[in-house]
């Protein structure tokens, strides 16, 4: 058996900092899933009939589907009947300003380092704070309104822009796409909706903070972003979650649509509760379907993700490159520490001519963590002169973790150009000692090496997020060095 190393052990034994629960009265429906539950969710949200029908159809499809088991993830069977499918902070009067928001909720944000007030005043970021399934407050709406940008909760968009929802909902990720997408389609609670009109460059980064808060409540977010011809938007998504005993299921769906000459940049920093560091119990199960379509010529979709949380991560943000000359990008840092397991990557589907895709994946494994890159590149027959560049690097910290790489390549057009590079390295005792001998502490050394490894991805994040991501990496890896 491999010998354990006290230096490395202590360097990676950082505990989850954001483990606390906000005590706000919740309105939660009892666990279980059937047609009545779906009707209840739909009626609580005053949804139109067509949407209820859509949900029920998805539910009946889901019943016929089987949970996928091809990912390199090991977990106890999920009891879908033991999950409560709706939870909302108790309805109060409509909020007009932050003063009206529950002070305890505001304190939670402060603990997380995202004080709304400060953001409102200082940063040029509009925050749509989703607190357990229901949007509590939305800021910057006016300014966005001037530019014609729609940025609101999904439920609100269903009421105010039903024609757009009807046109695009499920157009990129159909309800039957996969098991978890079907489940989400049946029971999704809320999420965000973004619409950028033709020729508009969104005047600010759009940001949403998600947060799971009620015990036993699945979180089923639904996000839809539409960028009309020649428009541009950068969307940021970040989350942290409180400590919990029960496994929490999270199955979100994100759909992006980029029309001709449009560009969507979607950045995620994910820090769901990873489970007890000593036993791995209680962490979030994160089964996410994210997909974008470059439907118009010369359009571009760029996914950047920093995944440090969750007990399980099952996530493959993908691009369908349909328009000629369209571009898809995927930049990812995935960290699995302690008992975390991550099976993540991307799919790039080239349909249009001269389509290009870039994949940069950086996996970090520490503790007993298992990190898998799974990526598919498909060049269809119609995709003349398509190009792909993939780079998948893994770094191992300690000797009980694992890194795995599964690239799938399917080329049906001989004019395609494919490049694939991969590497695996290790933060060794010798590297740490070398740094120590130069007066650099182990904590700083680990952080320096990991940040150096992730640089290419962090560079893709918007400035404020890059700083946060770096901080998160430090917190996730190295705080407990004695």
């Amino acid at each position: 058996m491999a010998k354990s190393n006290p230096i490395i052990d202590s360097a990676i034994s950082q505990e989850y900092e954001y483990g606390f629960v906000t005590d706000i009265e919740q309105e939660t429906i009892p666990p279980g899933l059937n047609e009545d539950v779906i009707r209840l969710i739909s009626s609580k949200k005053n949804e139109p009939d067509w949407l209820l029908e859509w949900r029920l159809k998805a539910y009946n499809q889901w019943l016929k589907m089987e949970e996928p088991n091809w990912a390199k993830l090991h977990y106890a069977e999920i009891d879908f009947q033991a999950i409560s499918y709706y939870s909302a902070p108790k309805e109060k009067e409509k909020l007009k300003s932050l003063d009206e928001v529950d002070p305890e909720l505001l304190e939670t944000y402060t603990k997380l380092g995202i004080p709304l007030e400060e953001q409102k005043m200082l940063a040029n970021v509009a925050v749509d704070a989703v607190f357990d399934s229901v949007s509590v407050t939305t800021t910057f709406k006016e300014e966005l309104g001037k530019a014609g940008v729609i940025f609101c909760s999904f439920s609100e968009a269903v009421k105010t822009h039903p024609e757009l929802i009807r046109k695009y909902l499920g157009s990129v990720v159909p309800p039957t796409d996969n098991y978890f997408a079907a489940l989400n389609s049946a029971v999704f609670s809320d999420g965000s909706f973004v619409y950028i009109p033709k020729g508009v460059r969104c005047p600010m980064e759009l940001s949403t903070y998600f947060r799971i808060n009620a015990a036993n409540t699945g979180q089923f977010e639904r996000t839809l972003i539409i960028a009309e011809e020649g428009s541009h938007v950068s969307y940021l998504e970040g989350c942290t979650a409180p400590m919990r005993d029960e496994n929490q299921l999270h199955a979100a769906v994100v759909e992006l649509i980029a029309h001709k000459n449009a560009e969507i940049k979607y950045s995620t920093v994910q820090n769901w509760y990873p489970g007890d560091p000593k036993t791995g119990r209680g962490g979030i199960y994160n089964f996410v379907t994210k997909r974008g379509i470059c439907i118009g010529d010369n359009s571009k979709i760029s996914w950047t993700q920093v995944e440090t949380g969750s007990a399980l991560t099952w996530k493959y943000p993908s691009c369908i490159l349909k328009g000629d000359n369209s571009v898809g990008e995927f930049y990812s840092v995935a960290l699995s520490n302690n008992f975390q397991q991550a099976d993540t990557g991307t799919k790039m589907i080239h349909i249009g001519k001269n389509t290009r895709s870039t994949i940069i994946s950086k996996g970090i494994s520490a503790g007993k963590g298992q990190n898998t890159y799974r990526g598919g590149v498909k060049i269809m027959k119609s995709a003349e002169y398509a190009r792909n560049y993939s780079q998948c690097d893994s770094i191992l910290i300690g000797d009980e973790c694992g890194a795995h790489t599964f690239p799938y390549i399917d080329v049906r057009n001989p004019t395609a150009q494919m490049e694939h590079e991969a590497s695996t390295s290790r933060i060794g005792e010798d590297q740490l000692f070398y740094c120590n001998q130069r007066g650099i502490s182990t904590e700083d050394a680990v952080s320096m090496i990991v940040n150096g490894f992730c640089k290419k991805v962090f560079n893709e994040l918007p400035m404020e997020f890059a700083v946060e991501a770096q901080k998160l990496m430090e917190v996730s890896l190295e705080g407990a060095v004695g």
Partner: protein
Amino acid sequence: MLEIKNLHAGVDEKEILKGINLFVKPGELHAIMGPNGSGKSTLANIITGRDHYEVMEGSVTYNGKDLLDMSPEDRALSGIFMSFQYPVVIPGVNNTYFLRAALNAKLKNQGLKEMNAVDFMHLIREKLKRVQMDEKYLTRAVNDGFSGGEKKRNEILQMLTLEPTFSILDETDSGLDIDALKIVADGVNNFRNKERSFLAITHYQRLLEYMAPDFIHVLIDGKIVKSGDKSLAIELEKKGYSWLEK
């Protein structure tokens, strides 16, 4: 002053050093010579505090402070430096960034203001000239893709930048051609002064032709079997080590 008294040490309960006594005063350069497996590198690892090395008996102090009680980084911050026999590659970490982090750790420890990137570039460019290194090494990752000679020069560059008071040169001559050896030796020689002391670990007397040692110690089977001045090195070169072995 570095004082080693009756040092017994090893790895996994195996005793490698069997009673070492060594005193290195400020300004002195001591050379430790000896055949493979005699314990030279163990001595360097004990002084710098590498993990897995165990002290069974004896003491190592530096300027009166018990080194054995300190973490490797605290020893480094107290002025102990080692030019590694096999410098470590750190992919992704820029050489300049690394050096500045090390220098700033030292400045911070001394309660001084940390150096900004602009001032540091001025400093490092000047140091580079002393080891005849090209500026392109500054933008590369630490030791990544460096040749053997470049790695050794990079070690000396770090020494010149961090200005330690006690430097261990662990087989710094190995893998160097004669030109590189001269550059490294010049770098060390120009760095020598009344306060700074050195412990040069080497197989061959070649290095010692270029940097005059004050004392030479022969280490065989974990013990210093003979000490002398520069002439001892010449004798060793002619006769080998066997005449000193029991």
